[in-house]
């Protein structure tokens, strides 16, 4: 039976028990029968009075909810991922992996250098498009400006990967307040800044995914990395909280906690420490950045994942006595 949409509203304020955003419409059939229906948020921005479609029933524990599906409206457009620290290391691998999956990529990084150019080229070779955004994640104004640029370039933001991170290692007693602040500002405040700036765009699109790149160091600590460990633990608290706050708007938030990944950051660790580390873990090698990227892609695709920290660490956490 064909139903015509005669009026509709996009609800941006979630209400229990559904705690979700969606559109609500009134539809009418040829016999003049009217029904109130729900319309999935993926159609936000594309509904029009007079559209026709069908009504199906969607089972829920609260009852069978009538769902209007407009005809001839593609549910998915091209999707956009913003990857901070996306020019190099893990961020570059994630950018390229998501480009292969059809995402348009906003590569945000502090510097447009040769590595950045190579990443942009790789995204293009993967058949997608990239925009480079010069962004200092530790400064909100810079983030806001960068996010606006992405939105104006690509029209939407579906995925944010808070990957930008730095280290300034030292034993706590030798760690200057500047070393502490710098790491917290980039790794933790940066994730808050970016999450805050992209959330309105995600809500407007009807949802999104935020992935925070934490670290096993945030779970088990590490000598010489008080600032880094605190920032990565902080990302876990941020993940849990945002996952609760943003779920009603269709935004999922997940953290990953990699072990040592084969990047310049890990290779900067003194060799004896790296060797000792490998002796203590069940699979004694470094993780490839591409392996992290595959997990990120899975988190985006698997809509049941929310508010968790996924270690990707070759078994480091099970081998650790936290000492």
């Amino acid at each position, binding site marked *: 039976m064909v139903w015509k949409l*005669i*009026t*509709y*509203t*996009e*609800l*941006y*304020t*979630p*209400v*229990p*028990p*559904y*705690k*979700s955003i*969606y559109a*609500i*419409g*009134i539809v009418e059939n040829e016999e003049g029968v*009217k*029904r*109130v*229906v*729900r319309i999935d948020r993926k159609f936000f921005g594309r509904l029009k*009075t007079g559209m026709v479609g069908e009504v199906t029933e969607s089972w829920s524990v*609260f*009852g069978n*909810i*009538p769902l209007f599906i407009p005809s001839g409206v593609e549910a998915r457009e091209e999707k956009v991922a913003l990857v901070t620290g996306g020019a190099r290391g893990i961020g570059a691998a994630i950018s390229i992996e998501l480009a292969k999956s059809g995402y348009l990529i906003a590569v945000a990084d502090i510097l447009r250098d040769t590595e950045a150019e190579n990443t942009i080229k790789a995204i293009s070779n993967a058949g997608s498009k990239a925009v480079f955004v010069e962004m200092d994640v530790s400064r909100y104004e810079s983030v806001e400006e960068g996010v606006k640029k992405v939105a104006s370039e690509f029209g939407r933001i579906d995925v944010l990967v808070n990957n930008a991170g730095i280290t300034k290692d030292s034993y706590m007693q030798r760690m200057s307040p500047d070393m502490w602040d710098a790491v917290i500002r980039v790794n933790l405040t940066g994730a808050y800044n970016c999450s805050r700036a992209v959330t309105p765009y995600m809500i407007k699109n009807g949802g999104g995914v935020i992935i925070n790149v934490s670290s096993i160091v945030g779970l088990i600590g590490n000598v010489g990395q008080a600032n880094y460990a605190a920032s990565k633990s902080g990302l876990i608290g941020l993940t849990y909280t945002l996952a609760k706050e943003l779920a*009603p708007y269709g935004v999922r938030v997940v953290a990953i906690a990699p072990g040592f990944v084969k990047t310049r950051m890990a290779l900067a660790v003194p060799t004896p420490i790296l060797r000792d580390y490998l002796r203590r873990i069940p699979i004694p090698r470094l993780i490839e950045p591409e392996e992290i990227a595959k997990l990120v892609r899975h988190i985006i695709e698997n809509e049941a994942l929310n508010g968790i920290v996924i270690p990707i660490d070759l078994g480091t956490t099970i081998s650790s006595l936290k000492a």
Partner: protein
Amino acid sequence: MEVGVISAYSLKYELRTPKEVWDMIKEVTEGVIRKVDKGISEEEIDLVIVSNFSDRFGGLLHTAPLVISHLGLNSTKGFRVENACVSGGTALYLAWNFLKSGLVRNVLIVGFEKMSYLPSSMEINEVLMLAGHPDEVLVGSPFVSLYALIAAAYMSKYGVKEEDLALIAVKNHENGLRNPLAAMQKKISVEDVMKSPYISWPLKLYDSSLITDGAAALILSSEPRKYTDAPVMIRAVAMHHDHPGVFQRDDLTALRAVKKAGEEAFRSAGLTPKDIDVMEVHDAFTIAEIIVYEMLGLANRGRGVDLVRNGVTTFNGEIPVNPSGGLKSKGHPIGATGVGMVAEIYWQLRGEADQRQVPDAEVGLVENHGGTGATSVVAIFGR
């Protein structure tokens, strides 16, 4: 038999009151008795009608005997009424009918709601949502969305813009500045309304009435001149209904219950809209006030917004509407709302409205509706 309002009392409405709900009830009960010009004794109250939408908004049920006990446990009878946002109007309707029948001589109406009893607006909206049609509850449509469906249909049919709806919010906030009882005394501009976030497109935060705590009380009497030389006489009270679901209605842009109740009230009172000097109407959302203008015969269909644009319903206009600030600025503590509207007209017709006094107001009208207009009470008052 003539029936008049002989006293009114209201707390200042608040967004989040520190008062306990029982203290709010006691305060308005004592206040309204104290305010009777020639005095009234507790045992002269024959009937108590308590207006309260939900025990989730205050944590109390069975409140009529609490009030009666507080009055001294005489032979007074009482009960609570719930009719969504028109619980107060319904209490008025019942009191008026009881008094006209001669069963009672004096009725005390107490309306209250402490909406901040629930911790978040999400939970508050869930409770309010239950006043819709079960199909609307099933799809998860809060009231703002139901009014948004009406607003979207109205805007599309009559070419009205969001900026036009905003004029109602601006007017009522301007009025609220003169009312010390208003919960949000804040001047706003059309730009402020347009910049406020969408709650349910096309309605924004500033198109919506306030989640409020408040209590108000009235005493109605069939021997009004025994208690005051300046009673406000009830010329008519009419109640009508519409289908509860917006989707059930032939015309999504009309509020049939308001139209019917208005027509009956004007007919009973022998008056026309032109005779009204001041009105308090149910501006739960900006779109509602515009449609109410049309339903009450103040404007043709689709032209309601002209009244505010041309200043007809502004404070200095021909028929000031919501001089109290309305639900938008004064607030909307559900059970108290209709009671507070009558209190405002009582003060206006007695010339006691201070800075917000409409000059020479002799005839006043209250329109209070519930749900998206499934029930409407229209009452007309005169000196």
